[in-house]
């Protein structure tokens, strides 16, 4: 199996709090990799370091063998990492379609000059952007909402829209931060088949999730963070049986 993402000894400190301590993990191309852990374990911090929102203090990140030493989020997007957020962050005043079209930004070129002169190339690109956005909306199952203002969408549809927007950047690695948070059982089941479909289409997914059933059913491998440190990394069944993991979640007396 080829390695897609490699993290070696990643550390991040906020004042006196060591949010990430020497975290190393490897994600293989084409797998769904789960990242779990109790609240405050550092899962979201890892996402933020990975996507360039935070600058790491220590360690190395490599995507498909290339080091990720990137100064700004738009370079991370260009390198091929896209993400969604635990608390949904859409462009609320733009339509669903426009949200996804912004996601195409990193893979397209038209500049101001082209826009002012309305060149044939610009118009063709704009049409292609719109077509790609509409296809992605259909892919995640909200094709009928293309013209709806994003903040007027239902909660579940907003989550789908966020995934469509992330997919629009043509990521190598899609990082989902608690995509099932706040969803009911029906919505979670639909989300699960959507993520399964992403894997079938060859995408690599990094998943933070609290819904243990979803993680265990969906992920090929799971890593457990506790207090900023990785305490386990294995296939779901082995992780579930790991005494360290049980201790982290339930306390020492249950181990």
């Amino acid at each position, binding site marked *: 199996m080829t390695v897609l993402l490699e993290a070696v000894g990643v550390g991040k400190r906020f004042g006196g709090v060591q949010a990430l301590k020497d975290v190393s993990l490897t994600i293989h191309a084409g797998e769904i990799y789960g990242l779990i852990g109790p609240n405050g374990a550092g899962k979201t911090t890892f996402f933020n370091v990975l996507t360039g*929102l935070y600058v790491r203090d220590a360690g190395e990140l490599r995507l498909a063998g290339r080091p990720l030493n990137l100064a700004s*989020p*738009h370079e991370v997007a260009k390198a091929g990492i896209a993400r969604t957020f635990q608390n949904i*962050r859409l462009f609320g005043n*733009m339509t669903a379609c426009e949200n996804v079209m*912004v996601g195409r*930004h*990193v893979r397209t070129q*038209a500049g101001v000059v082209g826009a002012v002169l309305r060149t044939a190339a610009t118009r063709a*690109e704009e049409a292609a952007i719109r077509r790609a956005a509409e296809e992605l909306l259909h892919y995640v199952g909200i094709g009928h909402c293309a013209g709806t203002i994003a903040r007027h969408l239902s909660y579940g549809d907003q989550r789908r829209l966020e995934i469509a927007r992330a997919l629009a950047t043509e990521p190598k690695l899609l990082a989902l931060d608690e995509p099932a948070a706040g969803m009911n059982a029906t919505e979670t089941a639909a989300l699960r088949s959507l993520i399964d479909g992403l894997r079938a289409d060859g995408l690599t997914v990094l998943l933070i999730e609290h819904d243990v059933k979803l993680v265990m059913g969906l992920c090929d491998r799971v890593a457990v963070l506790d207090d900023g440190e990785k305490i386990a990394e294995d296939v779901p069944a082995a992780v579930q049986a790991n005494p360290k993991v049980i201790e982290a979640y339930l306390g020492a007396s249950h181990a």
Partner: protein
Amino acid sequence: MDIFLQQLINGLTLGSIYALVALGYTMVYGILGLINFAHGEVVMIGALSSLTFGRWLENSGLPGPLVLLAALLLAALVCMTLGFTIERVAYRPLRNASRLAPLITAIGVSLVLQQLAMLVWGRSYHSVPAWLPAGRHEFLGASFTDVQGVIVAVAALSMAGLMLLVNRTRMGRAMRATAENPAIAGLMGVDTDRMVSLVFVIGSALAALAGVLVSANYGIAHYHMGFILGLKAFTAAVLGGIGNLAGAMVGGVLLGIIEALGAGYIGDLTGGVFGSHYQDVFAFFVLIIVLVFRPSGLLGEKVAERT
């Protein structure tokens, strides 16, 4: 002559210019949450530099309108460079400072530009040659000049162009995304610093256009002209709802009309105690009324303080 219609025409002319300048304020506010008080001075630099370029070009024997057009394009280049530089030098280093710091810096930049303009162009009033035809047309008992017609038409066209750029193109989409949430726009691959520069450059081009039009309208330009014009355009932007592009246009035109009608009727209404030279009072009266009764402006939404 019908005073009402006449003042409406005058107000529309003036309002078109306010609208062009107000767009610059509102775009910068929309993307940075900053009131760029130096924007009025960019208008002034646009007016004075186009005058200088126009006087050079006059000797080439080109027809007047072409001289004006060429002078406008050169002045727009000067202003775009200036706007880009102001953001880079004065505002970008303060991007994460408290909100007060860039505001004070903006006032400082404004003073620096005024003094520089005074050194370059002197303290005297410059008369602007009439490069446009000086025709006058009768219209339902009122009249409008060719210059007024050109001002309204050019302003309307450039605003339509701006709306197309912002709403229908990849760059415009990236600008709106950056205005809504810079961090997320960055994750979508938008170079947000470039978008901020772009906003300053576009706003400054509109400012140059406004400077050329306003000096063609009054036939006069001087180093201090940007101050009051800038304040009034800011008022227009607040009136329309700052941060909202359509609001800036509506606010600009509305403010121009309020001013013109106010100036037209104040003499009659007060029995001659106040004359039309009180014109400037109306703009700031409107500003106070708006700030008291509808701080979010006509088209602005109520927004919570950004955290």
